[in-house]
């Protein structure tokens, strides 16, 4: 493997006619880390990634891999592997032939074909026509093609779309494994919850603009948990919690929500006031709510869903 490559995006801008798909985007993806490139559908993620890969020409700004544009790389597929949406295969070509075609074009040894087929677990189906492949198998084949050149950087656009839960779990582990080998992994998604277990760093975009960038841990620290408490003494609980500096909200006769509180804080407090509890639960990490808030705060056209909306962790 070539050593991990640093992906750098500076002032990247793309206009399609009057539509500003990407506006002055800056971010960096580092070797050995999985960087989640996150934002709602239509945020400009795909356009930005395609500019990084020389498929779409930037209106302004640069997108480089180890300081060079993709189309200026000497052996691009040995340095960067890409799995993009909306790519396909000739349906009557066999999977092995598809990979052979790619080795011929790139000068990569044909010995790699079996190696990458093993890596993605497609060896047994390699001689089937791609037309008969499931979506998950196509994604794996796409990934196999991206890994042919044993690249130091991997760029994946919504790779979990269309995968079943097992496929997603496999992909997560696989991306972690690749980053563990020192590679740079840049992966886009419209679901933070799905990526939270995989990524080290996040780059959050909305409407073509960078909203947030940094380690996921920083973001997690900002997303404090909410506690759900069920008690027959709701009124007393509200006053006790408020007196302790929390902002409790009574949402039902016997249910109180306390934002920005942890079980470690709330449990001892309520015990010391001898308040009877039926239930004390932590309501997720609220990371998704923060994500929605970040990507929505530009207002206007982002759709009606409230910041508290519960987003299912697996795409339909």
């Amino acid at each position, binding site marked *: 493997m070539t050593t991990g490559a640093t992906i750098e995006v500076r002032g990247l801008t793309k206009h399609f006619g009057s539509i500003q798909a990407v506006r002055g985007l800056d971010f960096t993806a580092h070797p050995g880390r999985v960087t989640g490139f996150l934002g709602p559908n239509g945020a400009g993620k795909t356009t930005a990634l395609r500019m990084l890969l020389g498929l779409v020409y930037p209106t302004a700004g640069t997108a480089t891999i180890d300081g060079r544009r993709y*189309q200026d790389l000497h052996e691009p597929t040995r340095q960067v592997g890409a799995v993009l949406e909306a*790519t396909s*295969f*000739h349906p009557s070509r066999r999977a092995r032939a598809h990979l052979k075609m790619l080795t011929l074009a790139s000068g990569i040894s044909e010995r790699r074909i079996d190696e990458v087929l093993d890596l993605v677990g497609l060896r047994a189906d390699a001689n089937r026509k791609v037309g008969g492949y499931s979506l998950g198998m196509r994604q794996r084949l796409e990934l196999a093609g991206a890994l042919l050149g044993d690249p130091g950087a991997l760029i994946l656009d919504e790779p979990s779309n269309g995968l079943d839960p097992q496929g997603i779990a496999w992909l997560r582990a696989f991306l972690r494994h690749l980053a563990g080998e020192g590679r740079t992994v840049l992966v886009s998604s419209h679901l933070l919850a799905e990526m939270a277990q995989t990524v080290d760093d996040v780059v959050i975009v909305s409407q073509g603009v960078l909203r947030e960038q940094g380690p996921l841990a920083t973001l997690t620290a900002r997303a404090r948990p909410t506690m759900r408490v069920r008690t027959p003494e709701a009124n007393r609980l509200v006053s006790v919690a408020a007196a302790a500096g929390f902002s409790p909200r009574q949402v039902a006769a016997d249910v109180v929500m306390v934002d920005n509180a942890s079980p470690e804080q709330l449990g001892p407090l309520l015990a010391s006031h001898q308040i009877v509890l039926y239930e004390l639960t932590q309501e997720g990490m609220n990371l998704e709510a923060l994500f929605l808030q970040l990507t929505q705060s530009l207002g206007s056209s982002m759709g009606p869903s409230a910041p508290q909306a519960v987003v299912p962790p697996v795409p339909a």
Partner: protein
Amino acid sequence: MTRLVRSELFKLRTTPGPWILLVIDMVACGLFLLIPFHQAGSLTGGGYAAPSTVQDLRDMLGVGYEAALFLAPIIGVLSVTGEYRHKVLTTTLLFSPRRADVLTAKAIASILWGLLLGLGSFVVVGAEGLSWFAADGGSFSSLAHQIVPVVPGVLGAFALLALFGVGIGVLVKNQVAGVLVTIGGTIIVEQLLVALFQNVFHMDLNWLPSEASAALVGGVFNGRATGAGRLLSWWAGGLALLAWGVVPGVLGYFTTFRRDVT
């Protein structure tokens, strides 16, 4: 570039389309071979006979030209439009981001497949044509005299018409449209235009693709129909056909092929 050409040839031979073209090519040539034998027969009172006139001998040797007109452009169209139709252009460009190189490799691979179709036609001429010719007592020495004016031209027509298909493919991007434009253009529209301009404006559009390729192949199937002398010389025809291959390709490169791939 060698890598890219090998990859493009591999693409062609791992899909059914180009092989189907080769089969149609050989079957069509087998049928078209009847024409010069029938023509020769009509000179001697009906039935079939070995060709003996220059025109009939050329029609027999160069029978592939008729197939080239409608088949060779399709190979170029398939090579380019298949990338759009099956959305493989993204993968192709990831593996070779320099688009001019990709298009050049496609042109070379299509020309080579065009030559294969040309060779296919000569296999049919050799197997079927020569055995009929021998059985009917044809003169091999007069046939041999027509090899130089016809054979290189037929191969050249297959190659350049394939290139023409690449150019049209890049311009229109859509596979069905590409096939219709090339076949409909050379076989229907062009014949109508030629006739119209000849009769109404007394202009000879002998530089259009099929007229130009007819000149390149020594007037096969064309001298009789439209009268000898009106075709371009073989080299001028070849140049005109080359222009029909290169100009649309270059235009297409600068208009469609360099666009954003989204």
